[in-house]
């Protein structure tokens, strides 16, 4: 009995907390921005903080003008846990629905991690008519869905790189490597999730097969794989000069460590999430010299002198949160999405979702990632010139623990350097 009494007391306290912290009716109702995402993951955590940073900046300047009054922005976040393995999609959807129905947000930003969850969430978002500015999930399939039924799905936008543009960047990097060093044997390793698999397949189809490369191996790894020795041995045996990894799971750090420990004489060039941030140098014990990594958006844990806004963003993030940005995917577009939204609301001069969507479609903003514009699939256009479109950054780790942008050429800070034991063919 003692336990049940204790338990009742605990529950009562929990309930009390619940009521106290449920915000009451505010005098001037703020505009609510919902952030339903996987906050327990690095990218989700930093995206949320970037959104909060943007909201604070806007509020400091007096908020958003709607009609005659300026209204403050307010962030409501909810952990939908969709990135955690074993969490069913309906569970994530229920979270999004709860956020929409209870907090009544004007718009959602960031959104689900897994493309599977985004695809399933699109129907719910269409049902409730709440604009979503997604910044994590990357499968181009959602654009197809928008193009097929633009009236129904027009509420969904994407600011981050999608798999198609990632392919463009990867192909560009590979072409660059090929023209500089004459390498033409590649081993593709990717995580077995929709976006990574699609990216790998498309890179192979549209670039490697046409440009005369030899793909000596292509393998996809279930999320959670913790030993890459056999693949790395294959790389060595087949003489691949370049490894193209596409991973966003934390275990992919093992791949880097093993690549180093097994002294595989190949250039590692692709996307491995642990390599994106500045702390990777310490994490991997200074053993990542030569690794090349794509930071999906300019501003996400990387900044360039040529795009001043990206520098300001990275610095003000560090100042506000006391920690450096580490995620190479998400933070910059999350930050930008709040600004886009604020501008669209001011232009539309109302909170009506259809009006906001109409204004969002007209977006043309010079932001952290370069120039932001949407195409008809509501995807931000990425290209190589920051004055014409948004850009990503291909970064190489150099010997002093510094990161140099090596691609695209317009913002490059240096040339690709080959790791020890690998010589140019040309």
């Amino acid at each position: 009995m003692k336990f049940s009494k204790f338990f009742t007391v605990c529950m009562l306290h929990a309930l009390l907390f619940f009521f106290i912290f449920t915000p009451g009716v505010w005098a001037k109702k703020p505009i609510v921005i919902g952030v339903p995402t996987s906050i327990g993951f690095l990218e989700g955590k930093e995206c949320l903080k970037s959104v909060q940073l943007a909201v604070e900046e806007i509020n400091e300047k007096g908020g958003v003008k709607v009609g005659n009054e300026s209204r403050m922005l307010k962030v409501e976040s909810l952990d939908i846990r969709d990135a955690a393995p074993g969490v069913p999609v309906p569970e994530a959807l229920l979270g999004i629905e709860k956020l929409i129905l209870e907090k009544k947000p004007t718009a959602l930003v960031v959104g689900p991690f897994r493309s599977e969850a985004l695809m399933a969430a699109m129907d719910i978002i269409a049902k409730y008519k709440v604009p979503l500015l997604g910044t994590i999930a990357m499968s181009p399939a959602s654009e197809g869905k928008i193009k097929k039924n633009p009236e129904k799905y027009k509420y969904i936008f994407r600011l981050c790189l999608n798999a198609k543009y990632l392919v463009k960047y990867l192909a560009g990097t590979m072409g660059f490597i090929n023209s500089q060093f004459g390498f033409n044997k590649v081993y593709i390793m990717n995580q077995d999730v929709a976006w990574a698999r699609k990216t790998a397949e498309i890179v192979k189809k549209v670039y490697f097969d046409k440009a005369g490369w030899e793909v000596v191996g292509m393998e996809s790894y279930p999320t959670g794989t913790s030993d890459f020795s056999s693949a790395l041995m294959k790389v060595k045996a087949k003489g691949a000069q370049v490894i193209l990894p596409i991973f966003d799971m934390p275990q992919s750090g093992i791949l880097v460590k093993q690549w180093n420990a097994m002294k595989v004489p190949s250039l590692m060039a692709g996307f491995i999430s642990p390599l994106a941030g500045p702390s990777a140098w310490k994490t991997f014990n200074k053993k990542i010299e030569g690794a090349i990594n794509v930071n999906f958006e300019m501003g996400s844990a990387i900044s360039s002198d040529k795009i001043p806004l990206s520098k300001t963003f990275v610095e003000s993030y560090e100042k506000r949160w006391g920690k450096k940005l580490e995620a190479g995917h998400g933070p910059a577009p999350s930050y930008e999405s709040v600004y886009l939204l604020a501008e669209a609301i001011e232009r539309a001069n109302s909170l009506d979702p259809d009006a906001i969507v109409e204004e969002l479609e007209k977006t043309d903003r010079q932001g952290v990632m370069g120039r932001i514009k949407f195409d008809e699939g509501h995807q931000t256009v990425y290209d190589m010139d920051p004055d014409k479109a948004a850009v990503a950054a291909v970064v190489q780790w150099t010997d002093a623990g510094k990161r140099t942008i090596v691609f695209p050429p317009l913002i490059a800070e240096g040339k690709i350097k080959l790791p020890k034991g690998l010589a140019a063919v040309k």
Partner: protein
Amino acid sequence: MKKRKERIDRGIKARSGDIFALSSYREMMYLSAPRFVPIIGFLILPLLLGVYWQKVLLSVAVFALLAISWDILAQTGMVSLGQALFFGVGAYITGALNHYWGVPPFISIPLATIFGGIICTLMLLPVLRLRGIYFSMVTLIIPLMLVRVIEATKIFGGTEGLTGMTPLPSRWVEVYLVIGIMLVCLFGFRRMMDSDYGLVLRGICDNDRSVINAGINIYWYKTQALFIASSIGAFAGALMTHVYMFVGMPVFALDYSIFPIAAVVVGGPGTLAGATLGACLLVPLSEALRGFGGLRIVFYGIFLVVFTVAIPEGIFPYVQRKYNEFERWVEVDK
């Protein structure tokens, strides 16, 4: 002076329990209240709740079904750690039928219920002879394996799953369909477990060898129990597929295996009503805690621990005892 606690049936229980010619309203109320309160409650609730809590109610009913299915198996001596298998197979059958052949939900759901039951029973048939924790381990592993098979062979949409199922006509149909089925299962199977047939099933759990001694083929009975339980699970899965218009690998998630067990543990095993009660408490609790973000799962875990340790019999037997009996302190005879 030593005292001890004594429990005695209430008078009204003694009067109405054995004598079938009920003589007063009070007695009739006494007997019918525990049955009608949940029925009426479940029928009225959807009218009172908002859209979001209606969705929660839907989850309550779905998890109650899974918990009932788990409890039937457990009462037959088969402790399953893989309710997700039933749920997932049902979900995939209806998903495939609807996606590839355009079968409307009102045909695909019943088909998925029956064939889901048959397929799951066939899958588990080879391990029917296993007992105790060994049976549990097999059920834990099969759903994990199916996920990997789907991932590797890329059948049924692979990791992306199938989207764009036909939804049910309206949310009222969704809610009342699942609540109706849940109530039918609850009372129907409660009655079944009290019948002679149920006696055999429970006998298998208590002492399977003496049931064999009585000349009863326990494997045939176990197969039937398995079919019943897996059909219920498959129905839950099929329904959820049409509600969320999506089916994919997550339908085999561990949540669907752990949650029903937790519901039964909280509610009280062996009564089916306990399973339902457990789901009614746990699902809304888990929703209410959603505001705490990741901390919700932590609370949830602590809650489970406290429950298993403090009230191992579950809530339902406790409530039942309070309803039927009163307690008093009496002196211990010298």
